[in-house]
């Protein structure tokens, strides 16, 4: 779409109006309640069936209210779809277009099956981090649900996508759809040229490493579709050149000291954490088209990287705002009682947190946790207790809208919880933490929601949302340039936690991509190698 607005790539200076300039156009202030003269004479009609006209009218008042609170969003594009289309969207990781792969088919089949059997309701909404921001409204939803979804997705999620620093840093909302179209066509062309099997095998291997295909500290350059196409050729040629280091056949000079030489030949010079990137640039045997597909998978992984790190924040933010916007609408006299009650009922279902031991329990509900945290921040600002003054001296009594906005923009789940999880929220959820140490025959309750446990709990909770400790830390350690060109990966254990048994399977995928033997060492806390794996290309 408009790559010219992408100043990170083009190199223009940040506009002071933009958040990138670390300044906001106008300070946010909680708006006063609507004056009586501005209130509608009667609420919007509230039948259970929606019509296009009604959606327009609801959308208009929601938009107006969101604007009063200063929610900064991409333009909205609401799309009405059927349940079947929702399942389609589900299956292709929520994107409107994507390349073809059997795993999406598997996803679709199981979604469809569960839906048909009534074991699972479909999500009410899918929202895509694009510009304009696309929100799907399902045909089956009632009018109240559509209003809820518009407030939740088109204003909640949308403003989060636009505001949160991770999304600003790692995703380019204006070009993602273009890129996926390009990816889909490219993969289809490869299937035609090289056979479905070859492409499928490659994609399988790439998907296995998808979580290790993200840059964590550097913004990848973003290109629009045309530039992407232009450069694909150059890139292929260049990438092939880079492989030459591994293929170099000139005999090494023998007069040098061996140790020094080994040092000089170390490749890569520093360990690399982006496995797919390393493979794309350095795997000796990949064809240019294969490198491009590795790159595509890497780019998609990078696009989803912020979402994986902001589940609680993102869902909590959207839930907080649908709740707040609809309540404001109701207070202003826009909503009928029936509509409001249905919205509240759905809202209550969404933020239900089953306690541990409950049949429905499967970990923390990000909607519930996020919603509770944002709501509590608001409460701390508006009506702080002594405890809050002690824990959050800089928040107590401040403008809640500004505080909330700051929290949304500058954190990810890990730091957000570390910063804002308040004792009251911990008490309300009755949180407790359990230490599972294999050296101990029993589990130990390390902290509960009491004065002595708040900090421990908060730290543990924060760690739980840290991708760095959720996923094993695996890096490219070295390549044996002088010998069999084998690749050495190193797993650094987190708290002595070993790898899952399927590590061997994943290594097979790595070997398929690398083309030469792949070794992996698992290093425990003491620095000793606890386990080794080796996979030969012949066995992969």
């Amino acid at each position, binding site marked *: 779409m408009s790559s010219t607005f992408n100043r990170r790539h083009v190199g223009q200076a940040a506009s002071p109006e933009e958040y990138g300039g670390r300044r906001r156009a106008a300070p946010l202030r909680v708006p006063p309640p609507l004056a009586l003269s501005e209130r509608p004479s009667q609420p919007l009609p509230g039948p259970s069936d929606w019509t296009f006209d009604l959606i327009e009218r609801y959308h208009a008042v929601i938009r107006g209210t969101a604007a009063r609170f200063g929610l900064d969003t991409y333009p909205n594009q609401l799309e009405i779809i059927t349940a079947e289309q929702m399942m389609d969207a589900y299956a292709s990781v929520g994107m409107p277009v994507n390349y073809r792969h059997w795993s*999406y088919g598997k996803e679709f089949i199981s979604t469809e*099956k569960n839906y048909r059997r009534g074991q699972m309701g479909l999500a009410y909404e899918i929202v895509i981090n694009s510009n304009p921001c696309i929100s799907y409204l399902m045909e089956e939803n009632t009018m109240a649900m559509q209003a809820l979804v518009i407030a939740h997705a088109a204003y909640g999620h949308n403003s989060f996508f636009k505001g949160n620093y991770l999304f600003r840093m790692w995703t380019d909302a204006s070009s993602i759809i273009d890129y996926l179209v390009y990816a889909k066509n490219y993969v289809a062309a490869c299937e035609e040229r090289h056979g479905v099997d070859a492409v499928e095998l490659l994609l399988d291997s790439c998907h296995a490493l998808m979580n290790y295909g993200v840059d964590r500290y550097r913004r990848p350059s973003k290109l629009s579709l045309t530039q992407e196409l232009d450069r694909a050729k150059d890139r292929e040629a260049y990438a092939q050149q880079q492989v030459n280091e591994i293929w170099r056949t000139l005999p090494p000079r023998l007069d040098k000291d061996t140790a020094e030489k080994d040092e000089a030949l170390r490749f890569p010079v520093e360990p690399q954490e982006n496995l797919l990137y390393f493979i794309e640039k350095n795997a000796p045997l990949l064809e240019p088209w294969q490198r491009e597909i590795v790159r595509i998978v890497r780019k998609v992984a990078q696009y989803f990287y912020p979402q994986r790190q902001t589940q609680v924040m993102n869902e909590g933010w959207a839930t907080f705002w649908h709740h707040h916007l609809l309540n404001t609408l109701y207070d202003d006299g826009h909503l009928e009682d029936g509509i409001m009650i249905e919205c509240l009922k759905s809202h209550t279902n969404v933020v239900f947190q089953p306690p*541990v031991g409950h049949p429905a329990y499967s970990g923390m509900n990000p909607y519930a946790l996020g919603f509770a945290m944002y709501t509590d921040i608001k409460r701390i600002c508006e009506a702080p207790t002594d405890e809050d003054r002690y824990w959050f001296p800089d928040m107590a009594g401040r403008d809640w809208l500004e505080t909330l906005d700051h929290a949304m923009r500058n954190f990810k789940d890990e730091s957000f919880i570390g910063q804002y999880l308040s004792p009251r929220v911990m008490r309300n959820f009755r949180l407790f933490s359990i230490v*599972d*140490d294999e050296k101990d025959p029993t589990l130990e309750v390390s902290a509960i929601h009491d004065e002595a*446990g708040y900090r421990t709990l908060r730290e543990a909770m924060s760690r*739980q949302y840290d991708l760095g400790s959720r996923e094993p830390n695996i890096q490219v350690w070295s390549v044996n340039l002088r010998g069999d060109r084998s690749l050495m990966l190193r797993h650094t254990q987190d708290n002595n936690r070993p790898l899952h048994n399927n590590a061997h399977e994943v290594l097979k995928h790595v070997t398929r991509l690398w083309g030469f033997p792949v070794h992996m060492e698992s290093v425990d806390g003491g620095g000793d190698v606890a386990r080794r794996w080796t996979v030969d290309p012949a066995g992969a």
Partner: protein
Amino acid sequence: MQQIIDRRLAGKNKSIGNRERFLRRHKEQIRDAVKRAVEGRGIRDIAQGEDIHIPRRTISEPVFGHGQGGRREMVHPGNKDFVRGDRIERPQGGGSDGSGSGQASDSGEGDDDFVFHLTKEEFMQVFFEDLALPNLIRTTLADTPEFKTHRAGFSSDGTPNNLHVVRSMRGAIGRRIALGSESRRELARLEEHLLRLRGESDTPARRHEIEALERDIEALRARIARIPYLDPIDLRYRSRVRTPVPTAKAVMFCLMDVSGSMDEARKDLAKRFFILLYLFLTRHYEKIDIVFIRHHTQAQEVDEHDFFHATETGGTVVSSALVLMEEVIRARYPRGEWNIYGAQASDGDNWHDDSPRCRELLQNNILPLCRYFAYIQVVEQEQNLWYEYAALAQESETFAMRKASEIDQIYPVFRDLFRKEGVAA
């Protein structure tokens, strides 16, 4: 810019390509499942979909994750009565695997198999994969008297109901322009001349000239007016042509021996074979008639229920069924309109002198009328009927015969019979 877009009509089944890839990947398992289903399931519901079980490990997509062991700390909600320092027995059976990697089992079926439903079409697709109807090529145009009309442009003659008004009027306009242009040019020239003459001084010679001009102009006008507004040559008709289409009707003759030697098990074998053939034909023809002929010493045409369930005893004269089949063909299924298939099942028992006659009947009277005739013998033992037929099979391409004495042989035998050229069964 705010907008609502109605996408409901914009293609569903976006995932169909992904589903196909999924099925393709698990073809082996699906084929096995289909085979098991065919053997196991009752005949009446053979043309249904099927639940396919695929072991979960073959469809898992492995990623690096944490395994059991080491030290981890998990926060849970809903503390009831724990206090700090409490010790809890480690739950058996793994407990939570890793911190939030992947979803916990997403269906009520636990972790055993990935189950999904193959639709009827997909089931049949797999079921009849690599099979083809023999001699389909012979559905030539010569013996297909069915026609289909479709449009083929426009013609200058036709019936009034096919008149194409717009085309006709367009032709008329063109004709009027073409025929009148010369006269109109002349007329314009004369009128201009007339105008010039009138402007000049009035003399008798001029007046004379003007009169002549006016006469000419009058004549030209009359000529232009005579050009008809619509002429028969303007008329255009929609042209409809009749093209012969290969006939899409088939009749299937099921011939079965119901003499005393055919017990229920053997009948069941035959029935399975007939059903397979029927299903296979439904994939190629829109309309299929089935004629059931059963015989012992005499043949009679019966309905399906009687065919399979009524019991008779007595000797066996196979030729009686063949004679009846030929009669039915001659009476009701003219060869030009129907694709005729025959399937005969028997235990091979026949009155001794009758077998050569059967062969003769088939060879001379029936095979020339049939697309294909399959004989299946439901016992191992070879008797004179088998020998006669075997000789016939050598000579005729439209005749095939196999033996199947166990239920699980039916499907392979069927596949063998209808195997595509060059594909292993």
